[in-house]
């Protein structure tokens, strides 16, 4: 088999971080080579070097057998390297088609654009992906999942021989992931080499041919996916074995109701949603892309206005007009889109962790207690193992997964009675994930009511005491947690469109 | 020894009027072999900027200073500083509420504008509506010319009604635009007084663009465009001061004062009304500038 990429002893340093320490990596034509490692291991950095975004500080890189040092993405593209970035980088004011073909617009004479051809070509790509997106839709108005689809479409449109996918499925749910895998398999048969980065371990078995593991910027090893058990790969990643746990459903019959939502409505997005969560309970929310879970969460949190509906906290109806009202009532919401809604990425870790709790650190004159803020931040850095050179590193310089941990720390510190986590483990590595699961369980044990929205069914099933399922803005049912409920049960409800409106299974 | 150095701090710089003052000052500088500099703020509201200029001028340890105060009081502390340093100050264009300036070379703007009012009355037959396009609402020259005109009309020409006073900042284009609006609002208008060169040209332009007939335009100062408009009959006439004379006299008085000679405390450089008929008289053409 031809070797498309051969990276040897690659070195990379950032101020204060030795991000890559003599890393090896190679890619063959027609294979899917998974690159695994904890958050901050250096995966994205390695791929940015391959795609010409960063220069390397040492080592050698061969593309198609020739020494290559692409200076800039354009050169890398010319060498056949395409990349789907971990962080979405789209032009929000432009349409899907305009985004996909930016820099390569079909043109008429005199620099005029051929908009028709542009949209037609985009439609072609969407069709080939079996994706029902309108090429003329403005990207900024799309949900994060759809935006991710646009990114994928853009990368595919380059017809690169080497395709890097940096956590393409972080924002996708199972059905969408399945479609992506169909595309990947087709590309494989065409001889394209794919580098695949993901924190979803189950995807490895489905799609990867070989797996390279990195830890702390160092190369750990490369193994065949087919004959290596997942647990071994995890051990290579985290340096120890992780035991998997079963969900234990506590007896909550006597617990008081913490949050009750009645008849929540807003346009087409939320159509009459009612449910309740008890103290000490973890309520999972499952559903397909665009099911309206995020909308419900934002509505409860006061981030978006409501048409009608009633929200009671601890039995008292309350009027929530803004997020500050919600927080005052003890409700916290961790957004699914950390970059836009979760973090001030230009500020440091400390500022972000304390953002929701500043009043705790303020004296009567409005002065901030820096020492106390530093101390709690460093506590969370340890507790969540956030890889950062210090608590005053700017958040934008952290790896994606570590940024997510900062958002989690922010809400853990706020210590709300009712916590809504929207895709809390997006982009978080397996080791950290199990730590976060433990944390959520501890929070529940302490009597907090927790809502977890997740597009990963295993996660929902692993965590939830009860599972609410949504489809097209309606709550189609609430299932009990634990081993009795299967993935099929959930999918059944998640695809239950209109007509059949009877909720299945009631609260325990 | 070094040449004598005399900075002139004026009220403006870019306007033709101030350039003419500068020309007069330059002439005197050549004649008497002294060195001068000439500067002024962008517009006549910038009182504090003018004071910063005065401060910088003082730092240069000049022989004497020429100063056209934007505000009659604001600069007094600096003038006191000049006096303490033994630097004689000559005021030009406008006076200062202080006895520090040894002489003041200026035009009586109130009287000049009153003359414009008289001419306006004469030309429109003593009755009808007129308007004023002024260059500034708050500066000394703006106020004096406006009020000189208005008061004279009120006092001497009861048949004339001043329908509106509007301010175009001396900006040719803005004055054009607002003249057009005035003409629209007052179809029976007989005359317009423009209180400086930019205003006057704006008025002439606006009247021309609107194709209005029978409007008597009286301007202020000169400049090529205004002179031509007067020659062509588009404008009836204008008041001219003697800017070149102001500049010349200021520098001359400054030199004499620095030599310890006595200078007259008020140097009236005079003003004239000119129109197509008299503008080529040597006495008038001498004070007009392009």
């Amino acid at each position, binding site marked *: 088999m031809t070797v498309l990429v051969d990276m040897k002893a690659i070195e990379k340093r950032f101020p204060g971080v030795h991000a890559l320490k003599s890393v090896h990596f190679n890619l063959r034509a027609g294979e899917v080579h998974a690159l695994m490692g904890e958050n901050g291991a250096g995966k994205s950095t390695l791929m940015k070097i391959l795609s010409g975004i960063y220069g390397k500080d040492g080592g050698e890189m061969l593309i198609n057998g020739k020494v290559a040092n692409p200076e*800039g*993405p*354009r050169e890398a*593209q010319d060498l056949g390297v395409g990349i789907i970035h971990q962080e979405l*980088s*789209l*032009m*929000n*004011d*432009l349409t899907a088609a*305009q985004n996909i073909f*930016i*820099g390569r*617009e079909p*043109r008429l004479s005199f*620099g*005029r*654009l051929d*908009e028709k051809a542009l949209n037609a070509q985009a439609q072609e790509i969407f069709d080939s992906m*079996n994706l*029902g*997106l*309108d090429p003329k839709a*403005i990207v900024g108005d799309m949900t994060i999942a759809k935006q991710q689809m646009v990114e994928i479409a853009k990368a595919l449109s380059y017809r690169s021989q080497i395709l890097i996918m940096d956590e393409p499925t972080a924002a996708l749910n199972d*059905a*969408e992931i*399945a*479609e*992506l895998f169909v595309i990947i398999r087709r590309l494989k048969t065409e001889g394209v080499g794919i580098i695949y980065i993901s924190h979803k371990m189950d995807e490895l078995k489905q799609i990867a041919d070989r797996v390279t593991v990195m830890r702390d910027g160092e190369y750990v090893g490369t193994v065949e996916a087919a004959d290596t058990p997942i647990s071994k790969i995890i051990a290579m990643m985290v340096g120890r074995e992780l035991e998997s746990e079963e969900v234990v459903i506590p007896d909550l019959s006597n617990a008081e109701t913490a949050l009750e939502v009645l008849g929540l409505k807003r346009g*087409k997005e939320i159509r009459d949603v009612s449910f309740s969560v008890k103290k000490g309970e973890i309520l999972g929310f499952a559903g*397909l*892309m*665009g099911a309206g879970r995020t909308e419900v969460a934002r509505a409860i949190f006061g981030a978006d206005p409501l048409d009608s509906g009633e929200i009671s906290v601890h039995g008292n109806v309350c009027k929530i007009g803004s997020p500050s009202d919600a927080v005052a009532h003890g409700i916290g919401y961790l957004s699914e889109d950390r970059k836009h809604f979760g973090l001030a990425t230009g500020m440091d870790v400390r500022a972000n962790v304390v953002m929701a709790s500043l009043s705790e650190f303020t004296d009567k004159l409005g002065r901030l207690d820096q020492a106390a803020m530093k101390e709690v931040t460093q506590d969370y850095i340890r507790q969540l193992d956030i890889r950062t050179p210090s608590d005053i590193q700017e958040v934008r310089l952290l790896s994606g997964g570590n940024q997510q941990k900062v958002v989690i720390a922010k809400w853990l510190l706020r210590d709300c009675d009712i916590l809504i986590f929207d895709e809390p483990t997006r982009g978080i590595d397996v080791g950290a994930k199990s730590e976060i699961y433990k944390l959520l369980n501890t929070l529940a044990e302490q009597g907090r009511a927790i809502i977890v929205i997740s597009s990963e069914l295993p996660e929902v099933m692993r965590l939830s005491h009860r599972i609410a399922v949504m489809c097209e803005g309606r709550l189609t049912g609430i299932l009990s947690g634990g081993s009795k409920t299967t993935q099929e049960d959930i999918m059944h409800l998640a695809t239950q469109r209109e007509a059949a409106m009877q909720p299945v299974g009631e609260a325990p | 020894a070094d040449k004598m150095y005399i900075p002139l701090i004026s009220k403006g*710089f*870019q306007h*033709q009027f101030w*350039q003419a003052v500068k020309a007069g000052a330059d002439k005197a500088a050549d004649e008497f072999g002294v060195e001068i500099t000439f500067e002024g703020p962008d517009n006549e509201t910038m009182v504090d900027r003018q004071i910063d200029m005065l401060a910088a001028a003082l730092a240069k340890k000049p022989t004497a200073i020429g100063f056209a105060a934007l505000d009659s009081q604001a600069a007094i502390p600096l003038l006191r500083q000049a006096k303490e340093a033994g630097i004689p100050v000559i005021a030009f264009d406008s006076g200062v509420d202080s006895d520090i300036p040894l002489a003041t070379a200026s035009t009586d703007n109130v009287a000049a504008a009153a003359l414009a009012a008289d001419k306006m009355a004469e030309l429109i037959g003593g009755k009808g509506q007129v308007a004023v396009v002024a260059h500034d609402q708050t500066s000394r020259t703006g106020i004096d010319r406006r009020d000189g005109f208005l008061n004279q009309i009120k006092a001497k020409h009861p048949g004339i009604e001043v329908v509106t*006073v*509007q301010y175009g900042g001396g*900006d*040719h*284009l803005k004055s*054009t*635009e*607002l003249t*057009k*609006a*005035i003409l*629209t*609002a007052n179809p029976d208008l007989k005359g317009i007084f423009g209180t400086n060169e930019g205003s006057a*040209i704006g008025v002439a*332009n606006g009247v021309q*663009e*609107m*194709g209005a007939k029978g409007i008597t335009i009286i301007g202020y100062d000169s*400049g*090529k*465009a205004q002179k*031509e408009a007067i020659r062509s009959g588009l404008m009836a006439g204008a008041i001219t001061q003697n800017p070149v004379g102001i500049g010349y006299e200021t520098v001359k008085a400054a030199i004499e004062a620095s030599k310890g000679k006595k200078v007259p405390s008020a140097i009236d450089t005079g003003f004239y009304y000119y129109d197509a008929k008299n503008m080529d008289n040597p006495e008038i053409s001498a004070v007009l500038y*392009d």
Partner: protein
Amino acid sequence: MTAVNATKRPSIFSHLIDTGAHQKMLAFASLVLLLVGFSIASPNFMQMSNMLAILQATSVNGVLAVAATLVIITGGIDLSVGTLMTFCAVIAGVILTKAGLPLPLGLIGAIGAGALCGLTSGTLVAKAKIPPFIATLGMMLVLKGLSLVISGTRPIYFNDTPGFDQIARGSLIGEIFPAFPVPNGVLILFLIAGAAAYILSRTVLGRYTFALGSNEESVRLSGVNTEAWKMGIYALAGGICGVAGILIASRLNSAQPALGLGYELEAIAAVVIGGTSLAGGRGTIMGTLIGALIMAVLTNGLRVLSVAQEWQTVVTGVIIILAVYADMVRKGKT
């Protein structure tokens, strides 16, 4: 890739389109409201001659606002439009009057000088990475000074160039339809606006204008030579300022070297009132035109009503805020 088909939900998309058209209609409505209000308040307001005066008054500021729109959509700002206009007028004066060259050379010279200065600003912004505010503030001062230097701090008259004043003041339309003597300046404004709108919506340059304002880094990572395109956009804007320079010189039949300061804020105000976001990425030329017209109608109307100058200023401020507030309310932002 589930079958959440956007075309199956026409409501969302068509809603967006609706809102768009709706919005422009309503922005236009603000303008109409002003026109109607002034017509009622003063019988003199709604005359053909005054409407033409308003259009003529829009022409220079409108052209500058079109130039500013281009730069603002890229996420930049151009403070030099006013003094650049003056500079170009002075250049035309030097070519036509001082050198006595033929008219077309003067026009080309003015527009060329504008484009060159725009290119310089563009280079400072794109290559030297100087924030647009500072780069164009610097250019504003440099050009202000150079206009005075080149002209010898005195106006240059175009008396020796017959027909020069007809560029803005004459009326080709009036020759055909004597009832509508729309001045050529207005015609030129609409031509420039039309061309700019076409460039923005139909050409590669326009596409990159929006793309740069939307997410410059992503455009760069897509392999586009963002620096070159940005410089191109600033140069185009500069060239348009050159046209404004010709217009104002023609109206005043002279190049007034001291003019131009303060015009930049008026132009930017027209752009923002027209709904273009200062953050970049979105905006329309149509909106800018309406914005410029709103400003011109407001100024003219208050003058026609003979409102005292100081109150004119107050009312203008209030109405600018209200116009944009209405826009926000109908966009449902508040």
